[in-house]
């Protein structure tokens, strides 16, 4: 074309002249540059990288299939993402106080952390709960605790996300029961339960039952919510914990979507129409340090999920193809050395998540390499989101990095590599088989080990850890959970047990056992049991007796 330069020839020219001259005198910092997923990065991306690029096929428009550019047409011009700080510790009373504090300071959604006994279905007085009560989250034994957590918080006004998996049916039932007491109907409740057991076997470890039985509970919850709690996100298909366990960005996309495929298949298998539940599926990703890879990861995940839902499952509604997700910044990227630097890491990760089009966000606190964060640290973390939202202007353009040669190329490469993994998992017979054979666990461990080696070999520099190290006083102002919490919680449980109607508890637990043994949905009998103040442990024990327990061989 006359008057227009040929980019290919121009690139060659530049490489031979301007670039070559500089490289001769000043070699680059390293021989090759790679992302965490071993994607080799070019020095420069140009229109040559986008020659095959079909805009409507790859990107389309925001709010439309394949949703690469975002799930809403106006994104953050309409409203900001939900600022949702994961919180919960010690007792129901203290958690209630922290929630009210966060809501008073402009947080827009709640995110509930439970202690491990609650997550694994043991009461606070169980011998295996010793030392764990009220740590990592709030202890919930009965409906009484849940009533306290949400005292003076109107459940029709907030949305609540609960990080609860194996015991998700019980905690969701308690939430519904608290709402009933507030006079709020289940159909107006908004929120999410994680309810994502597959990744528990791979990475997080709070499984109770074997995979098949766990999937039965998951699909029972899907079916119950479809009819009774229609605004509820019935699952949060989670890559976060696998990423925290050490996997790469590509593995995070691949393993998360592979889990997603398994849930969709399970629901279809029990007779649900894909378009009747798919729009209530939500996702949960991590946001780590490698900025562009992370932005591209979110875009790739959205596009790939849309294609899977339409291509593989024949979803007809657009809403079924929409990957909506929550993001949490990377806990594993935080270090105890020079802890204030963690604020900077979190800021950058949060920015990548926003540029990737997240629906909600949790920003970690600077002191989380030490303990559950203090209120001051949590406030800084929340303010970080508010600064990004209100001051930087990045929220004024939808998907602003689209069209960047580098970002689009990375998005393509992440998608392609994730597809390779998903094909491999398919060829192994699906994700449950892959988990049973330890495939994903091994892949994650290999990546985690490589990351550790890279740090120790100083191939990867972490400021304050293996470079720019200073002598310093360790952070001492951290949150301490009073050991008395355990005693207090046990007393409270004992009191509830004496006040409740025991014959009603027995009757409802018996009804639950019958439902679990048969094919009936277990959520309604769980709801009856929590209304009768049956404990998390009692309800879990009934299910353990019917379903058995998972043990790693």
């Amino acid at each position, binding site marked *: 074309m006359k008057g227009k330069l040929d980019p290919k020839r121009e690139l060659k020219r530049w490489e031979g002249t301007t670039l070559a001259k500089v490289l001769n005198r000043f070699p680059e910092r390293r021989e090759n540059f790679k992302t965490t997923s071993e994607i080799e990065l070019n020095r420069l991306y140009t229109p040559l990288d986008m020659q095959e690029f079909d805009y409507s096929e790859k990107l389309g428009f925001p709010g439309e299939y394949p949703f690469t550019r975002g799930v809403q047409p106006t994104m953050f011009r309409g409203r900001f993402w939900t600022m949702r700080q994961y919180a919960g510790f010690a007792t129901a009373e203290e958690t209630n106080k922290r929630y009210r504090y966060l809501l008073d300071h402009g947080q827009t959604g709640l995110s509930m952390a439970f202690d*491990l*006994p609650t*997550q*694994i279905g*043991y009461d606070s007085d169980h011998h*295996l*709960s*010793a*030392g*764990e009560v009220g*740590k*990592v989250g709030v202890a919930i034994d009965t409906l009484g605790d849940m009533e306290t957590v949400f005292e003076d918080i109107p459940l029709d006004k907030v949305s609540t996300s609960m990080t609860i998996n194996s015991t998700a049916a019980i905690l969701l039932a308690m939430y519904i029961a608290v709402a009933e007491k507030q006079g709020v109907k289940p159909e107006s409740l908004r929120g999410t339960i994680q309810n994502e057991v597959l990744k*528990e076997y791979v*990475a*997080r*470890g*709070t499984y109770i039952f074997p995979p098949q039985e766990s999937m039965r509970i998951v699909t029972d919850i899907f079916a119950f919510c479809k009819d009774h709690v229609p605004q509820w996100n019935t699952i949060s298909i989670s890559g976060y914990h696998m990423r*925290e*366990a*050490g996997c790469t960005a590509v593995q995070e996309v691949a393993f998360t979507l592979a889990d997603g495929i398994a849930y969709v298949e399970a629901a279809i298998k029990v007779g649900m129409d894909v378009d009747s539940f798919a729009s209530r599926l939500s996702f949960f990703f991590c946001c780590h340090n490698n900025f562009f890879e992370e932005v591209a990861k979110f875009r790739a995940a959205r596009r790939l999920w849309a294609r899977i839902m339409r291509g593989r499952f024949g979803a007809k509604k657009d809403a079924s193809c929409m990957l909506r997700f929550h993001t949490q910044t990377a806990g*594993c990227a*935080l*270090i*105890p*050395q020079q802890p204030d630097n963690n604020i900077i890491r979190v800021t950058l990760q949060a920015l990548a998540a926003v540029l990737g089009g997240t629906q909600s966000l949790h920003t970690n606190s600077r002191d*989380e*390499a*030490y*303990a*559950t964060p203090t209120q001051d640290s949590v406030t800084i973390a929340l303010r970080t989101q508010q600064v990004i939202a209100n001051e930087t202007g990045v929220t004024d353009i939808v998907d602003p990095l689209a069209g960047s040669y580098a970002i689009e190329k990375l998005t393509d490469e992440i998608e392609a590599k994730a597809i390779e993994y998903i094909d491999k998992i398919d060829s192994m017979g699906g994700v449950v088989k892959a988990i049973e054979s330890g495939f994903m666990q091994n892949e994650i*461990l290999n990546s*985690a*080990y490589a990351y*550790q080696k890279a*740090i*120790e070999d100083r191939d990867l520099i972490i400021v304050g*850890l293996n470079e720019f190290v200073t002598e310093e006083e*360790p*952070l*001492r102002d*951290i949150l*301490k*959970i009073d*050991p008395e919490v355990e005693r207090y919680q046990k007393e409270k449980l004992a009191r509830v047990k004496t006040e409740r109607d025991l014959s009603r508890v027995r009757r409802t637990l018996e009804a639950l056992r019958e439902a679990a043994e048969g094919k009936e949905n277990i959520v309604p009998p769980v709801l009856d049991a929590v209304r009768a103040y049956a404990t998390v442990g009692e309800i879990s024990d009934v299910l353990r007796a019917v379903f058995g327990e998972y043990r*790693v061989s």
Partner: protein
Amino acid sequence: MIGERKIRVLIAKPGLDGHDRGAKVVSRGLRDAGMEVIYTGIRQTPEQIAATAVQEDVDIVGLSCLSGAHNHLFPKIVESLKEKQAGEIPVFGGGIIPIDDIPGLKKAGIREIFQPGTTIEEIVRFIEKIVQR
């Protein structure tokens, strides 16, 4: 020396915590450093860990806990080893452990606590120093 016994290490996850990245990465790193490593998997009681340590005839036990239950669990393992006449097996730990908890844990017989950011090399050096050959 021919036939010299490799250092045998038990890496264990006491309590309900499922965060096993650290335990697994350290296990692999110690193996790469020439040690024999037995990893218990998650959700072990203190008694189970002590029993495994004795049964496997290990030279040292490493504990990992990120749930905040370390003050309760770690000393229990030391006690349980003593009850099994294996009190000489040294115990160390790591995880999310506040600095202020470290003196108490050491007093309870935990030889060392490693914080996030510790290198495998540091742990290897510690073990080689402490295990009496």
